[in-house]
């Protein structure tokens, strides 16, 4: 028993250290966002700044600048994207869970093969820009890559197969319900955990995505999501720091680059929704990964 106690203490110490390590970078970001900008220039990003300030947040919320606009884009994108993604994923997964459906094997193969082999960036980019012309439109943020993936479909399908007893479905058909009624009245209510999991995966995917905007939004900066805006700012900083001659060329850019504390405030706002929502949905997330087993 004594060794047990010692082990518990050891575990607590080690896990507390790991947790702290996970948090430290975010704490630095949070503290920096509340630090006086001159203080950052003088002594760098610090955990214990000598002078605090809420100027960064005042600046963001008072100037009504691109930050709030990008925030709105991110929120709209995440809500619309998650709803669409959840709908088409659930419908396809339900269809694939139908044992008697002719062609089920082929359709399942179509989904699985999409997880194993893909054309990669170049052909995908050409299709989306030349055939569908979605460059510089909201659709470019919404559609490429993120809307549905084989992993979520298979995850949901196996949930439907294993957790919704066929007897219940049969009983509703006998009662005269059609396929859609069965789907909405029986299947959906029985599948809340997996719906929450897939919605969560999709939502995080949309909120965090920067690549679609980076690749497809080249002119319409009013369509930038928060991630794209953050990304663009970091690029400008790098561009200027690389050589001083760039500064003359980028006078416009220079005034457009917010101060160090404002940047950190923007990044803080970028993870704020996740940090707020995450503790409540963590269980669904963990369950989803466990359900997916080693497939993830």
């Amino acid at each position, binding site marked *: 028993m004594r*060794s*047990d106690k010692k*082990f518990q203490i050891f*575990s*607590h110490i080690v*896990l507390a250290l*790991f*947790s702290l390590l*996970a948090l430290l*970078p*975010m704490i*630095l970001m949070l503290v920096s966002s509340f630090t006086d900008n001159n203080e950052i220039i003088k002594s*760098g*990003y*610090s*955990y214990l700044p000598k002078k605090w300030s809420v100027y960064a947040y005042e600046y963001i919320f008072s100037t009504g600048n691109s930050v709030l606009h990008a925030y709105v884009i991110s929120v709209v994108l995440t809500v619309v994207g998650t709803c669409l993604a959840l709908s088409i994923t659930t*419908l*396809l997964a339900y*269809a*694939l869970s139908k044992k008697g459906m002719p062609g089920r094997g082929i359709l399942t193969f*179509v989904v*699985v093969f*999409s997880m*194993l*082999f*893909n054309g*990669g*960036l*170049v*052909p*995908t*980019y*050409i*299709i989306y820009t030349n055939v*569908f012309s979605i460059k510089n439109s909201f659709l470019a943020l919404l559609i490429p*890559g993120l809307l*549905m993936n084989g992993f979520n479909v298979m995850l949901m399908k196996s949930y439907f197969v294993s957790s919704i007893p066929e007897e219940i479905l049969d009983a509703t058909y006998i009662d005269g319900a059609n*396929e*859609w009624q069965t789907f909405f009245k029986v299947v959906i209510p029985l599948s809340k955990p997996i719906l929450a999991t897939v919605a969560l995966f999709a939502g995080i995917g949309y909120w*965090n*995505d*920067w*690549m679609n905007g980076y*690749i497809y939004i080249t002119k319409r900066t009013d369509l930038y999501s928060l*991630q794209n805006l*953050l990304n663009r700012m*970091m690029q400008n900083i*790098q561009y200027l720091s690389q050589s001083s001659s760039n500064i003359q060329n980028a006078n416009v850019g220079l005034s457009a680059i917010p101060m160090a504390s404002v940047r*950190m405030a923007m*990044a803080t706002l*970028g*993870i704020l929704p996740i*940090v707020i929502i*995450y*503790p409540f949905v963590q269980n669904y997330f*963990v369950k989803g990964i*466990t359900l997916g*087993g*080693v*497939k993830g």
Partner: protein
Amino acid sequence: MKKRIRRYFPVYLMALPGLLYLFINNYMPLPGLVLAFKKFNAQKGIFGSDFVGWKNFKYLFATKDAFVITRNTILYNLAFIVINTILAVFVAVLLAEMTSRMKKIYQCLILLPYMISMVIVSYLVFGYLSSDNGFFNHTILSALGKEPINWYMEKKYWPFILVFVNAWKVTGYNCIIYLSTILGIDRGIYESAAIDGCSKWKQITKITIPMLKPTVIMMTLLAVGRIFYSDFGLFYQVPQNQGALFSVTNTIDTYVYRGLLELGNMSMSSAAGLYQSVIGFILILGANLLVRKLDPDSALF
């Protein structure tokens, strides 16, 4: 048969939006892979462009880049597999033995970095490494009386930085699978071991670790199947696309991206893309066949 198809008509209708999306997003681009054998001409389009055979590949493999991106992609993945597995198993074992309510809080915090976008991760890293304002240069190195380091110009540090950042981000995620395996082990085994006077340490090394072995093997195999793919965000955002670091940060994914959108070198880019698709496919297929032999339930197909 006809009757059955009619009976399932609504179900096909349900499958339609998803299948349509897969067709657009995953299948329509596939014929474009042929571009690897062509000299791309924007006016003529993919199929009108002139056929050049293996020329693009000959050029690609004649450059130093082909070797560098393949080496980087594979070596980083190997380092990730080894280090992330050790960390994830370690954290999972400790979490599984936790009896207090703190367990949930620890898990929550360790998983949090996984939820953060790579752009913001690059801000976090910049907070430490920035040569002007970075925490390392300003606080740590100056306290030690050392000269500041221009982190984004010195490539010798980056293999370590990237491995560390990756471990920081994914350990919480990876340990979930191991944790659920451990929690699935029959507690009776531990109880009888404890009655026989087995210490906690012995229980872990003699029961938990051996029971985890199949899961570790499975996860490793699946990771090896993906060894030709890299996390574009990690290798592009975190080093901030710095040219001075390319020789240690360029992977197949970043190379394809730069070829396509920064350098306009479509031929090289599509050749490297096909190279990745084909070898990646063979590796995933092979890994899955092995997994299916060992444990059919864990196989992808």
